[in-house]
């Protein structure tokens, strides 16, 4: 095979890169994951720091360096990064505050980094889950199952809808328009009569081509009546419509 498949993906080796997109545009690229949490995780990893004891001053400095570079970036992305920058600075300042060294107070005092650590861990968990999904989908793509077998249900040929009927009707109608008609006397045919004719035809012939049936009509009025009769018979009688090709003739069949 021309290309070996990548079965796993190490998110952590993805390096942030600053590329020059055009003359006055810099782009920060952090693999495909570009969010403040990713940048932070990357920096922590880079500094080989313990996630539970983040050297906040150092990490904040590093982080701000990247954010400064990102000022050239679009605001919406940078916005998320700025919020995190503010959070980091806040944590940093909190940690610089002198602590009271009473034992009780120390126990009670919450580490200002705690919330961030929890967020980072949560984020990390889902990154690992994403990795698992990546592996699963790769394996799954090596599995093939059978394709569809043609059945009445998925075969478009036997599924004629009212719209298909309309299309056939439209076709005949337009053909009739072109014919020069000499109407000598006004023939009235009622829907009831038309229904009777249609029923008789179906029961005699078992299969009736709608194209043929409509073709026998001479006037627009008769055609319309015939069309309604077909709709009516489909609704009330045990008949089936079958169309063998798209936009082709429709066969009315007795069940």
């Amino acid at each position, binding site marked *: *095979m021309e290309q070996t*498949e990548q079965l796993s*993906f190490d*998110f*952590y080796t993805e390096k942030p890169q600053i590329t020059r997109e055009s003359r006055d545009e810099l782009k920060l690229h952090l*693999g*495909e*994951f*570009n*969010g*403040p*949490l*990713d940048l932070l*995780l990357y920096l922590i*990893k880079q500094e080989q720091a313990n*996630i*539970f004891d983040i050297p906040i001053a150092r990490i904040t400095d590093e982080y701000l360096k990247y954010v400064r570079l990102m000022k050239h970036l679009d605001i*919406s*992305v940078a916005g*998320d990064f700025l919020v*995190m920058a503010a959070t980091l600075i806040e944590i940093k300042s909190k940690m610089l505050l002198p602590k009271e060294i009473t034992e009780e107070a120390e126990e009670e005092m919450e580490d200002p980094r705690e919330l961030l650590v929890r*967020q980072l*861990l*949560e*984020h*990390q*968990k*889902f*990154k*690992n*889950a*994403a990795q*698992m*999904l*990546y592996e*699963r*989908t*790769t*394996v*799954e*793509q*090596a*599995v*093939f*199952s*059978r*394709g*569809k*077998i043609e059945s009445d249900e*998925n075969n478009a040929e036997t599924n004629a809808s009212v719209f298909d009927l309309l299309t056939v009707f439209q076709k005949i109608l337009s053909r009739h328009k072109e014919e020069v008609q000499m109407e000598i006397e006004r023939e009235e045919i009622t829907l009831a009569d038309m229904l009777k004719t249609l029923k008789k035809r179906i029961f005699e012939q078992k299969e009736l081509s709608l194209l043929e049936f409509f073709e026998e009509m001479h006037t627009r009025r008769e055609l319309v009546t015939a069309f309604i009769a077909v709709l009516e018979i489909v609704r009330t009688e045990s008949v089936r419509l079958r169309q063998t090709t798209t936009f082709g003739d429709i066969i009315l069949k007795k069940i």
Partner: protein
Amino acid sequence: MEVEEKQPRSISEIVSITEALIFVADEPITVKTLADVLEEDKETIEAAVEELKQEYEEREGGLQLREIAGGWQISTRTEYHEEVRKYLKTRPNAKLSLAALETLAVIAYKQPVTVPEILEIRGVQSASAIKTLLDKKLITAKGRKETVGRPMMYGTSKDFLLQFGLKDLSELPSIEDFEDLAQGM
């Protein structure tokens, strides 16, 4: 009406019919559907499917029988994907971007979940990833959350189970399993 005394089927017959049905079904076929078609009870079908599965495993052929997305399916074994692809002249589908995968992971584990909740975990806007996942039908909208702004909630779809080879959502490894990994970094 013909009155015909129905002979009870033998177990091996049930196993064979089950195999035939799983073979023709174009998507994973459920035990219930099998039971309905065979007019047997679910327990009998379950036993038959298990036996069939064992037969496939013992034979070690090119096919496997497996439970996926709530049903049973016969498919090729992963080992032979190169030859199968060569014949079908297909290439692996374009993979999801890592951002989309991460968003999908959040949705899979936290469903039903809203966009703001996804943002909180990912720390970044996920609109385009969500659109991709919706387009690929891996996730579906699951109504609105009764909270400020009534945000849309998302969850995974049946296609998600199919594409990731999962029986059901409970087959996903527990999210806590990833915690050790996270702390080990």
